[in-house]
C-alpha cells in the first residue's frame, strides 16, 4: 500500500472509530433526523467533488448516483419532518460529521487522476460502512417515533446498496 493510501485509510479509521461513540451518546429523535440529513448532504458533497475531478466514467456514474439517491432520501426526510410538524435539531454528532467531511475533502482535493479515483472509492466504501453501522445498530433500534424508524429502515436499504456498489468500485479502481 502506498504511503498516501495508508494515511488516508488511517485517517478515516480514526474518524470512523470515533463516530459510533458519538452516535450512542443519547441523540434524541430530532437530533438523529438532523444527523441522518447531514450524512446525506455530506455524501452529495463528496459526489460533487468527484464530478469536478474525475475522468473515470464509472466514478462519474457512481457520483451521479449518489447525488440522485441521497437527494431523494433527503426529500423523504424533509417530507416526514413536514408531516410531523417538527424541525431537525443540530447536535454535536452532526458537527462531528461535518468536521470529518471538511478534513477528508481537503485530502481528496489534493489528489488527481487515478489516485483521486481510488481515494474517492475507498472513502465512499468506508463512509457507507460507518454510517450504515450507526443507522442500523444505533439509530433504528433507539429512535422512538415509529415513522422515523420506518424512514431510517427504508433509507438504510438504499445506503446498503451504495455500500455494495462502492465495494465493487474499490475493486475496480485498484
Amino acid at each position, binding site marked *: 500500500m502506498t504511503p498516501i493510501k495508508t494515511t488516508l485509510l488511517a485517517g478515516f479509521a480514526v474518524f470512523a472509530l470515533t463516530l459510533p461513540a458519538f452516535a450512542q451518546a443519547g441523540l434524541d429523535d430530532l437530533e438523529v433526523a438532523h444527523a441522518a440529513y447531514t450524512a446525506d448532504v455530506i455524501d452529495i458533497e463528496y459526489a460533487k467533488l468527484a464530478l469536478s475531478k474525475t475522468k473515470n466514467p464509472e466514478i462519474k456514474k457512481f457520483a451521479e*448516483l449518489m447525488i*440522485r*439517491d441521497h437527494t*431523494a*432520501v433527503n*426529500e*423523504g426526510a424533509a417530507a416526514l419532518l413536514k408531516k410531523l410538524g417538527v424541525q431537525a435539531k443540530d447536535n454535536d454528532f452532526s458537527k462531528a460529521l461535518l468536521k470529518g467531511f471538511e478534513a477528508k475533502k481537503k485530502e481528496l482535493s489534493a489528489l488527481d487522476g487515478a489516485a483521486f479515483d481510488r481515494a474517492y472509492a475507498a472513502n465512499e466504501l468506508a463512509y457507507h460502512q460507518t454510517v450504515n453501522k450507526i443507522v442500523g445498530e444505533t439509530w433504528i433500534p433507539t429512535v422512538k417515533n415509529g415513522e422515523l424508524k420506518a424512514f431510517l429502515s*427504508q*433509507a438504510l*436499504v*438504499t445506503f446498503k*446498496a451504495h455500500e*455494495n*456498489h462502492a465495494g465493487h468500485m474499490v475493486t475496480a479502481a485498484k
Partner: protein
Amino acid sequence: MPALRKGRCLSPILLALMLVAGLIALPPGGRLTANEPQARLHNVDIREFAFMPAELTIRLGDAIVWTNRDFAPHTATSAEGDWDTSEIAYGQSSRQTPTQLGVFDYICVFHPTMKARLIVTR
C-alpha cells in the same frame, strides 16, 4: 393493445343470459366484447432494490404498472435498450403495454444489479 371488437346485435334476453353465464363482459369503456380474454393490468413493485415479482408472464395486450416503493429513483429498462419506463420517483408509477411477443430481461438503469424478466405470450 389490440383493438376490442365491436358489439354484435343481440336480443335483450339473449344478452342478459350471456351476461349471467359470463360469456360476454362489459369492459370499463362500456362496449360489448366477444368472449376473448380481457387485457389485464399487472403490477410490479420495486422495493428494497428488487423487482417483485422478478419474473412476470403476461399476454400480448396486457399492461404492466411498475411502482417504486424505494426512496431511490429507479427505472425498468430493457436490457436490449428497446423500451424504458424512464425515471420512476418514490411512490410514483409507470405503465407500459408491450407490443411484441418475447422474453425481455430488464434492469434498473441506475442500479444495474436489479434484474428481472418479462415474458409476453399470445
